[in-house]
């Protein structure tokens, strides 16, 4: 049952899934607080990937090649630029339309997504950019004769960094004053504003946190796939949104769980069926989940009041 091929798909799926989970958190937090789908989130993730590639190339030009330094500086650069972008997007495109008919913010977000895609496209060209190989090799298991399961260093890095981010976020949300304010605002925006919480600031913070995590995912997946282009945020954003819905939108642990499930189901599809249909499977999964359990796996059921 647990043969090495299956194990390999599981590892690949968990790798991609944990990165999806990082992006999904941005969707789920924003939705939990202001109830809008931040359509431009996938583009923020793409910008994170681009910035980290720019930083890595810059460091290489300066002759700095020690891996931990490169990784940390690239992460920092991506996080700073992406979260500034997240902040600016919220300020320019979402805050003025907050509270209007629910279609209005969504369309504003779609416009922002088109804008950002073309912004990067014009600045950096539409070609694929090769991500340099920062680390090679890994562990292999299994008999030499048959299929060998491999666990590369990149995959381990992705797991470790994702775990650190998730843990930090959980502690932040559970323990810090801002985190508590975030939870309060997501429960009842009007009430928390009456109680003296600066809701505008909390909403902006949510966008910044989501963007920072998406930037981390951008670096990790850019490294893993080995190439990026201005359009690769769109599909990843959709997948991450699927993950957020799967886990129950508004719930942070749900986004983590949803990301992992989506990643595994996707890599199982490419492993056992065909790589071309993995998107069909994930969207199909989304439709099925919404039909039979619209609140997702860990979401709270919504009571409709009259």
């Amino acid at each position, binding site marked *: 049952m647990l043969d090495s091929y299956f194990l390999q798909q599981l590892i690949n799926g968990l790798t991609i899934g944990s990165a999806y989970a990082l992006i999904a958190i941005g969707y789920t937090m924003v939705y939990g607080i202001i109830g809008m789908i931040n359509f431009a989130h996938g583009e923020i993730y793409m910008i994170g990937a681009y910035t980290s590639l720019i930083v890595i190339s810059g460091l290489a030009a300066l002759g700095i090649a020690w891996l931990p330094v490169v990784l940390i500086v690239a992460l920092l650069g991506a996080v700073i630029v992406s979260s500034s972008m997240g902040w600016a997007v919220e300020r320019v495109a979402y805050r003025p339309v907050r509270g209007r008919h629910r279609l209005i913010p969504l369309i504003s977000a*779609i*416009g922002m997504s088109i804008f950002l895609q073309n912004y990067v496209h014009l600045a950096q060209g539409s070609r694929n950019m090769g991500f340099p190989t920062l680390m090679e090799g890994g562990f292999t298991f299994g008999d030499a004769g048959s299929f060998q399961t491999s666990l590369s260093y990149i995959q381990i890095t992705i797991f470790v960094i994702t775990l650190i981010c998730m843990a930090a976020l959980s502690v932040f949300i559970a323990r810090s004053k801002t985190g508590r304010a975030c939870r309060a605002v997501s429960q009842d925006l009007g009430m928390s504003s009456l109680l003296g919480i600066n809701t505008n600031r909390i909403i902006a913070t949510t966008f910044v946190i989501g963007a920072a995590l998406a930037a981390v995912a951008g670096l990790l997946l850019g490294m893993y796939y080995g190439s990026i282009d201005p359009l690769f945020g769109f599909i990843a954003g959709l997948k991450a949104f699927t993950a957020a819905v799967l886990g129950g939108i508004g719930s942070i642990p749900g986004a983590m769980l949803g990301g992992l499930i989506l990643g595994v189901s996707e890599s199982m599809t490419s492993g056992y069926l065909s790589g071309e249909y993995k998107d069909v499977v994930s969207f199909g999964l989304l439709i099925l989940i919404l*039909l039979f359990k619209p609140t997702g796996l860990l979401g709270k059921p919504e009571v409709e009041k009259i």
Partner: protein
Amino acid sequence: MNAANFKHALFCAFITLIISYPILGLNLVSAGTSMGLEGASTVTIIGIFMAVAVVFLFQLCRDSAMAKLGQLPRPDFTSNRPPMTEKTRLKIQNIVILTIILGASLWPFIASRGSIDLATLVLIYIMLALGLNVVVGLAGLLDLGYVAFYAVGAYTFALLSQYFGVSFWFALPVGALLAALFGLALGFPVLRLRGDYLAIVTLGFGEIIRILLNNWTSLTGGPNGIGGIPDPTLFGLEFGRRIKEEGNLSFHEFFGIAYDSTHKVIFLYLIALVLAALTFFAVRRLMQMPVGRSWEALREDEIAARSLGLSRTGVKLSAFTIGAFFAGFAGTVFASKQGFISPESFVFLESAIILAIVVLGGMGSQFGVILAAIAVTILPELAREFSEYRMLIFGAAMVLMMVWRPQGLMPMRRIHIELEKQE
């Protein structure tokens, strides 16, 4: 200009620098196997710093500027006037629309070939937008995968003509009905969902259709698409120089005039015009029928509408199906106009553009939607020199429109009573 303003302005300027400099100012270049960096041109750098300065100054003087802006009179000509009664409105609408149709049907005989081609495209977008207007504007269901039904219409014609040699006139109703069937099949399970979920499910559906078209190579030709889609015929008269099918006559021989490739373009344009007019009148008629009234009732207040005995599923499903039907119409005309279709034409961006047209025009307002369809299709063509920046400007315009005039160019107005707020 106090200290807080200054600090805020400084912060905003700094953020602007951070989000523009690394992406715009440092260009990635591939140097062999690795990537190198290259500073951008001086113009770009100056541009970045100009933008930073503008943001700084604007934020610094924001309060006073906004106060002045608020004092300016709003150029809203309709707001003081009570809406017309339904009867006069319809009468005026009839006169306007008949004049437009008359003008539009005479126009191609004096226009250039390129502009007729563009006008056909505009008409296709009008059909699509009027169809989506039923779903989004009237019934209030956000459909982000509308392009899927367009694709169904186009591919129905392409496949039928490729495998069975079916003509345009037969494929037109079949494509539209098949698209409506898809709408029914998708709508039946998903219409129970809340607004945003519905949006995402329809988006997923649109992507699934596109991926299937892209990968089912044996049937659809995959990314290579399907070519050689026949032109429509006029009662059996073909518009080509040579006759493709046995027994048909060609248009120029029948009338004894010289062959001119513009004939075909004009004919296609007229077909699109007739179909767009048909769509317009059909939707307008539906809006006055009980089913149209119930769409709007359900959009305004679902609970109230249901308690008055409207079937939620039935009403939503009818809107969804009818919207899909018109998309199928438009798809067939599109396939015939292009002569070649591939999944490239049915990407999500297309759905976003059609949605943008509906919102830009003013949701529910048919005239507004037509106006917006013309603007969104023609303006980018006029700005050909800026074609690189086309989508950038399009995205920015979508955002600005939502911020400044979310009700659209010509919002739909109904006779209504506004209750005074009680103290």
